[in-house]
């Protein structure tokens, strides 16, 4: 129950509870003895029931009842078997025990679970279950156990979703401050939508009604967040594209890329989707080079925290050595073969086939010595827009969005969101309400996302302003607003070619161009706490993110061409925060100086501390051998090992992190990275 003050115990209460404890202990001992000896007599069950009435949280006791139930059903005599009343009486007894336990504590997981178990055996009346539910849901309207059980009963007894929906309407009408009721509503509507039940399809019809319904709640009491949460769900239903779509790639569609010849010519192909997908393999996506279909293609997901799925997928193509001919261009075609096989995490297939092609040519690699690469302003000059690489960049801003949607539907969505925006703008003129501002920011972004086909983003300034206000208004959630602010800012910067070019710089010295590429994207000193918009950045080879407030570089793994990365002066607290780097096989230059690595012994943002024993990273047994003698700092060293072990870094800056106070660590790094030429600005050997 909500809003009931807690009373501190008086000596009388304490006495009573001591007595109760003694009673429970004695019951418990007897019960466990019965349990141990498989005694399922009537007396034993009564004893168990007594115990559960006092303490419904005792899972073992519930499990014992289940065993007893099974035992008594299977061991009944022939006469009893013929008598359906006998089974019924056993079931009724179980239900009675649960009911008593629930009276004691109607938030007992064990009791609700036992009831489900018994009821699923059949032979019990739906009416009675619904009556019980009505009783509990009247006493505590948001009790999620009861709501959960209600869904179970509705499913078991085939109560129609429409009927249950009406129940949520009634409950919300009584008191709309009911998260459980709103939640159940979203569950039921999802079912109705999936089944395309009459009246709920097309979804515009019911969405309009639902927007109106929830608007009443949020306008009546904007501080009550229950309605707002439902509104977020509605917004998601409105803007969500119902299936995964491939939205960007490297190399981009129709592009010409030129590769330097080294020992062999391999290059990554990256596919970037609008959401995390699974199921990419040589059967679902084909690669055709010069009308020759490659058979042995392996697509790997680029993801640090999920297995077998990812928003970005990569494969490495190579051009056969004997064919290396600088005058020849190779046409490569990537095509979805079985788009049904590619699905979102919830199983929705990517039902639209897609394909794209690009051309590859090779050039001679002029071997150059590797000089130290710096990210100071002096190293750069303004970009020459006639550069060849600019052409490549341009292809990311050409209209690629397919018109997959019905035009009236998207028009409706746009109008719906525009009208919601107008409503909530009005609301915010009288009520200073944080979740209202947050919703408005999300609505505006959704509106822009629908409008944008390469056109300018109209509401970004307002959204940025909203997040700035929220940071001040609601300090406990500062980091969340900050992250959103950063993502919107990046969206704005990458919204069009012109704006992105403002952040692109050209290296003055051409000596190391084979490492850095000719363009450096400089997103430094923007106070970013998160990064995003990767679908527009797949071409980036050199990236400067220094002097921001990054805690994480999640998503950076999609930038497979990245060879130079500056992360200095951020707020990275551990090597595990650098995990995306494990996927960046081209990385040569890395600057993580002046972060907080090693400053926090326990990374509170993770459930598990990273260690050779934890399962977040696959354990490499050679580490123990490698780190022999350095076991004192095993944990931190392990992290560095797991991140840097597979990289061929030539230049690394780690100065200004607590961890390098330990000299052994520096030695460890030198040993770990045999190719390293520059460490903290000093040339090795």
């Amino acid at each position: 129950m909500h809003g009931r003050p807690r009373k501190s115990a008086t000596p009388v209460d304490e006495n009573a509870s001591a007595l109760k404890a003694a009673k429970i202990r004695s019951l418990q001992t007897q019960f466990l003895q019965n349990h141990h000896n498989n005694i399922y007599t009537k007396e034993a069950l009564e004893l168990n029931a007594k115990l559960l009435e006092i303490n419904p949280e005792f899972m073992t006791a519930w499990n014992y009842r289940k065993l007893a139930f099974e035992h008594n059903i299977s061991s009944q005599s022939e006469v009893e078997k013929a008598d359906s009343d006998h089974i019924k009486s056993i079931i009724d007894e179980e239900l009675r025990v649960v009911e008593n336990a629930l009276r004691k504590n109607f938030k007992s997981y064990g009791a609700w679970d036992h009831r489900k178990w018994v009821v699923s055996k059949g032979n019990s009346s739906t009416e009675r279950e619904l009556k019980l539910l009505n009783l509990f849901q009247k006493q505590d309207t948001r009790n999620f156990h009861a709501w959960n059980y209600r869904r179970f009963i509705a499913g078991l007894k085939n109560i129609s979703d429409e009927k249950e929906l009406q129940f949520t309407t009634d409950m919300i009408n009584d008191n709309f401050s009911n998260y459980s009721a709103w939640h159940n509503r979203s569950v039921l509507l999802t079912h109705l939508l999936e089944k395309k039940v009459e009246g709920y399809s097309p979804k515009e019809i019911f969405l309009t009604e639902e927007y109106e319904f929830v608007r009443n709640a949020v306008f009546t009491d904007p501080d009550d967040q229950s309605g707002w949460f439902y509104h977020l769900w509605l917004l998601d239903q409105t803007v969500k594209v119902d299936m995964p779509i491939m939205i960007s790639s490297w190399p981009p569609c129709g592009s010409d890329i030129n590769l330097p010849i080294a020992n062999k010519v391999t290059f990554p192909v990256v596919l970037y989707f609008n959401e995390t997908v699974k199921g990419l393999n040589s059967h679902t996506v084909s690669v055709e080079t010069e009308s020759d279909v490659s058979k042995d293609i392996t697509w790997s997901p680029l993801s640090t925290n999920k297995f077998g799925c990812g928003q970005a997928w990569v494969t490495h193509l190579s051009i056969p050595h004997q064919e290396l001919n600088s005058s020849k261009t190779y046409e490569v075609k990537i095509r979805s073969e079985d788009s049904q096989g590619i699905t979102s995490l919830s199983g929705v297939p990517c039902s639209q086939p897609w394909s794209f092609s690009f051309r590859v040519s090779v050039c001679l690699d002029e071997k150059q010595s590797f000089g130290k690469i710096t990210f100071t302003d002096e190293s750069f000059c303004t970009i020459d827009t006639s550069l060849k690489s600019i052409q490549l960049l341009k292809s990311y801003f050409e209209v690629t969005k397919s018109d997959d949607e019905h035009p009236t539907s998207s028009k409706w969505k746009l109008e719906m969101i525009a009208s919601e925006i107008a409503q909530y703008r009005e609301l915010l003129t009288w009520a200073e309400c944080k979740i209202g501002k947050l919703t408005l920011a999300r609505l505006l972004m959704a509106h822009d996302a629908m409008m944008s086909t390469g056109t300018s983003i109209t509401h970004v300034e307002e959204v940025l302003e909203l997040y700035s206000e929220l940071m001040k208004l609601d300090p406990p959630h500062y980091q969340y607003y900050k992250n959103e602010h950063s993502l919107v800012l990046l969206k704005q910067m990458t919204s069009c070619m012109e704006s992105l070019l403002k952040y692109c710089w050209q290296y003055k010295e051409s000596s190391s161009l084979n490492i850095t590429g000719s363009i450096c994207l400089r997103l430094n000193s923007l106070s970013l706490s998160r990064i995003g918009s990767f679908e527009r950045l797949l071409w980036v080879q050199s990236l400067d993110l220094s002097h921001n407030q990054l805690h994480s570089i999640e998503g950076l793994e999609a930038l497979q061409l990245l060879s130079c990365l500056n992360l200095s002066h951020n707020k990275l607290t551990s090597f595990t925060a650098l995990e995306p780097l494990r996927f960046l096989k081209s990385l040569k230059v890395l600057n993580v100086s002046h972060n907080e690595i090693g400053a926090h012994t326990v990374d509170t943002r993770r459930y598990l501390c990273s260690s050779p024993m934890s399962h977040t990273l696959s354990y490499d047994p050679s580490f123990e051998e490698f780190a022999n003698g350095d076991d004192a700092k095993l944990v931190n060293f392990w992290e560095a090992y797991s991140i840097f072990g597979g990289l061929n870094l030539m230049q690394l800056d780690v100065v200004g992190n607590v961890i390098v106070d330990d000299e052994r660590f520096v030695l460890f790094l030198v040993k770990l990275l045999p190719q390293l030429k520059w460490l903290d600005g000093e040339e090795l050997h």
Partner: protein
Amino acid sequence: MAETESYPPIDPTNFDLIVVGTGLPESIIAAAASAAGKTVLHLDHNPFYGSHYSSLTLQDLTSFLRSHSEIPKTNPPQSDDTETLDVNPRPLYSDVEISSYDDSLEEHSRKFNLDLAGPRVLFCADSAVNLLLKSSANQYVEFKNIDANYIGDGNGNLMNVPDSKSAVFKDKTMKYSEKNQLNSFFKLVQGHLEAVKSVDVAVDDEKIISDEDLESPFVVFMDKMKLPPKIKSIILYAIAMVDYDQDAGESCKDILKTKDGIDRLALYHSSVGRFPNALGALIYPIYGQGELPQAFCRRAAVKGCLYVLRMPVISVLLNKDNGNYKGVKLVSGQELTSDKLVMDPSFTITSSNSPSNVSKLARGICITNSALKPDISSCLVIYPPRSLYPDQATSIRVLQLGSSLAVSPSGKFVFYISVVCDNAIEGKKSLQAAIDDLFSLHSDETESKELKPTLLWSALYIQDLIEGSVGPVVMTPTPDGNLNYNDLLDATSKLFKKLYPDDEFFPETSNTDSSDKIEDDSEVVLDS
């Protein structure tokens, strides 16, 4: 002397208290005095309980109104000695106008229980309900909730009163901005009340409404909170149940202060949901308001009070030595003595000066063949000032009751209308305006568009408003113009305090501890 024989002699002849009239205040005093251990004789010259608070059949109501509106023949003083004062009837009603458009109603006369003092309801959390529980009189009455509250716009439209958070949410007529403003105001008031109640003063200090605002007129405070006229009107007239136009400025007779407005809002909101089986804020006793005085009379009888109906008192006896009250003389000729006497306002005693300029109240009772809204059996309708006609100075309240409350035969609906007024003309004008807005007169006229209930019968009358007074004898107040009994009960308990300063007004009985009380609470309302 056949006449005297029909009046049985009363024994004993000396009491602590004699009460004349069985209206609600008299019945409560009788019950309270009996509970305090006094010997009480309760008399009424009518053959029924309730006096001016009773619920009567159609015929009885008609004759009661007629008989109490005639200027009585002033009896020649029966004795001119200083030891007796003559008791004369005082006509409380005037301008009685009874119209019947359907003769068949007379046949069902006995199936009606018509309140003399309607419209009146109880708020679930009001002092009348508390008193019923405290005195255990609740066991003799059953209630049902009033299904809906409406506010009339004067054009025949009735809008639901958005009187709680969930009602605001459900309302279909208000703009979103209005919903926000109204609920924000509810929250402001609630926040204030909680902050005032909370022990920890520092926590919610900023939520407390300043003393300056509390003393200012409620309407000024609402203006300060930027509430639009529509919302102000809902709060003032349909929730706080204010009589006089609060926007009339200086000329308004009774300006509601913010603190009182807040109390009324609090009463309303604590009424919603007090009893799990009552849906709204308002409840009404099954069989009519007349059940309430009877319940208290029964309570008094349990405690030993003696009851004699059809027993007029003809004169008051005074003590020869000091001229103080001594006893009463009954129509039977019997003389009874007591320490104290309480009389209902139907009488004047020759010595006491009747107030010359009494306030008036216009009441109307209407019977129709259908309800205002098809599925709503009982409802309250408020016409705020100026809603029906430009110079309507006070709000008009209408209560519709159906046969589910056992006040009418099935298919017939009873409406009570009341409005405070300066004079009969003004009062009648208001009543008529409400009637015109709600009903159509003849069913045969095929105004198919208007689905208004057809008026079958009506009684319009003006009632004098007389407050309770303490003279040689205690006089109880007439029914007032409020929707609930709060003011009447206040006045009654004050009269009791005057009578018995040392006795508690219904002491808390020892055998009911607080946990029983909660169970009692839910028994107040019995839904069928």
